């Protein structure tokens, strides 16, 4: 007993037991739930693309760890999370080198060059996707990629059809089909039911911030409702917008990324609303069919600024 070495550290001496890897695994589980339907729909190519995205994201981070001679951080699961969320946005038939390039851009240019986890100003997934979209837009186009698939529902991408053909195309899609995932789209972006279930799970477990998610969808619904009420012959209704494109992936997995989103209550609401409003503006009167990626990147930029809105801390008010 005389020469024991005791652990000396700073208080507090207890911990709630949460950890980053646990958080990552929960988010990955919810993402996997949303991807699962596409495994049945598209089969082996989808499984291959998702696995490749996850593994290449991990390897990119490992490579950066080795190059920068830093501690290996792949254990926290953040790179794998980037990989799986990235794969949710891709069509199932995407070429392998596009996946690897995309995760490389996401992990290296989106995250590690800023200093790794917690330091990225933008959601890494969006950086990767945006760069691919600019470089090889055709390969990411849902309509072109899934040309050879035919199921008993409309195979044209709903959100692109709305842009290219107009609001009359909306009638071809029933809400039930959109909700159950009977639509063409990114591997993890089609099944509204699975996305919402995963989202509710993450919110209940406190893995994502519900304020962002809820205000995001509120922004979408309110803005599209206003457009729809103003001119139903030109603009689609709110539910169509919620269940098409990347809306739900954006609300649940993209906008809620920890380090690029605000943490105070009012800023979270502003951030979410801003994303939602901007998406509908882009979809309805802008150039692009789907504005999720662009508007979240834009809101990522303003996030640090709006996060300055906060309640007064203790003893900092005016006293009468």
């Amino acid at each position: 007993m005389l020469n024991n070495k005791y652990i000396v550290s700073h208080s507090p001496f207890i911990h709630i037991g949460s950890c980053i890897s646990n958080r990552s695994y929960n988010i990955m589980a919810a993402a996997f739930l949303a991807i699962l339907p596409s495994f049945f729909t598209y089969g082996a190519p989808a499984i291959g693309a998702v696995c490749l995205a996850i593994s290449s994201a991990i390897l990119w981070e490992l490579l950066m760890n080795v190059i920068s001679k830093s501690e290996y951080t792949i254990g926290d699961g953040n790179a794998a999370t980037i990989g799986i969320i990235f794969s949710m946005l891709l069509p199932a038939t995407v070429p392998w080198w596009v996946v690897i390039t995309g995760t490389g851009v996401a992990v290296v240019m989106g995250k590690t060059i800023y200093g790794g986890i917690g330091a990225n100003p933008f959601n890494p997934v969006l950086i990767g996707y945006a760069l691919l979209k600019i470089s090889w837009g055709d390969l990411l186009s849902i309509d072109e990629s899934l040309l050879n698939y035919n199921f008993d529902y409309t195979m044209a991408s709903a959100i692109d059809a709305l842009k290219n053909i107009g609001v009359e195309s909306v009638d071809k899609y029933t809400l039930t089909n959109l909700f159950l995932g009977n639509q063409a789209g990114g591997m993890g972006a089609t099944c509204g039911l699975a996305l919402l279930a995963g989202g509710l799970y993450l919110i209940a477990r406190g893995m994502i911030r519900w304020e962002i998610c809820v205000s995001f969808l509120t922004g979408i619904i309110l803005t599209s409702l206003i457009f729809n009420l103003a001119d139903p012959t030109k603009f689609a209704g709110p539910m169509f917008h919620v269940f098409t494109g990347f809306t739900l992936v954006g609300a649940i997995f993209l906008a809620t990324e920890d380090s690029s989103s605000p943490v105070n209550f009012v800023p979270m609401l502003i951030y979410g609303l801003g994303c939602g409003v901007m998406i509908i503006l882009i979809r309805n009167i802008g150039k692009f069919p789907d504005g999720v990626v662009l508007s979240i990147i834009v809101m990522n930029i303003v996030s640090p600024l709006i996060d300055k809105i906060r309640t007064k801390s203790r003893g900092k008010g005016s006293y009468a």
Partner: protein
Amino acid sequence: MIKKSLFGVIPPCFSYDRYGEHSESVTIQTPDSVTLLIDKEHDYPVSKSILKAGDLVIQNEVLKINDNAINYVVTPISGEILEISHYSGFYGREHHAIKIKAIDDGKTDDIFAVCKEKADLENALKYLKGIPGSPDFNVFKDFNINTVVINCADSDMGVFTNQFILNNSANDIKSGIKSLKSISGNKDLRFILAIPDNLMKPSELSDFDEVKVNQKYPSAFPIQICEDLLGINVPAGTTTEEQGVAFFTSETAASIGSAYIKGEIPFEKTITVTKKDGSIVFVKAMMGTPLNAIFNELDITLTDGDRIISGGLMTGNSVYSEFQPVLADTDGLIIQDSADVVIASDTPCINCGDCIRVCPSKIQISMLVRYIEAGEYEDAQDMYDLDSCIECGICSYVCVAKIPLLQFIKLAKHELGLKELEMEETDAE
């Protein structure tokens, strides 16, 4: 203790453990040797110390390093000084450690007995500075105090000393309040008892006003009691004393009370000891007793990698040796098995926002810690409310990245304090 819901969207509930009305305590025998600490004063080099190894001291003797020194310690036993050494405390605090070997010669210095008649600030400052609870009587000199809160709740988790004293020494607390009134020299001084809401006010104390402290951590912190229960706002960066409210724990009040009743300086410290299995024992030990005397008495076996915590789970200090002495503010002693020890990590903040949701002071800790990590302490203070922090430690407790947030905050405050001191010194020159 702290319950975490499976549903993380509900903020975790931090509540104090309920105190189960203990009345038994284990008394530790007078040890063979005690170690007493005197705070170091800048001006006096140790070499000029009038105390030397080999000097004989008698019980109740006031020991000073120098005749003009302000800091002193009263020896609880008679004996021979074995050694005087340097002792580094927390956050750069420095002390002289005086080790005294007990010699039972029955002699005692009853210098305090004459003070029995009348409690006043002078004799309180002269003899009672180091009694259990380590009261700071200077508040009556330096501030205009109109309210004294006797805090019968324990501010930290896993410590029940003040509640134990409230239940078992109500009479001492009562006379302590009387003596405090006379020490303060203020006849209109208001006394308020802060009692945990699961405990009844003992009948002996029925004359005094009470406020009920709820079970939600950190409601028993002085600032929190001041704001929530007394309705007095404490601006950031100031103390409750500046608002006219002084805090004394029930243990301090009881020690003051028993000192003036008996005319003897109290040395017996009540400690809540939490064993590895979580069971709680109340221990009464003489101040200066090495901790291992307590462990031996309670049959606690320590192994490599365990953690000994002096104080509570959230704000206590871990000690590196079982030969450290029991101090006037050692309210709790918690032994953590090596398997239960959680180590902080140097992962950066991932901005999850959990700390902000639980912070009782509504500080944006995620930004604060980024500034502190970069060494920008002034900016942390100006822009992100460093001063508003009451150092409760909840943020570190919930941190997903296991960042030692409380340590960062205390470090920043410490560094700013040093800078201020430096500036004052250059101004004086």
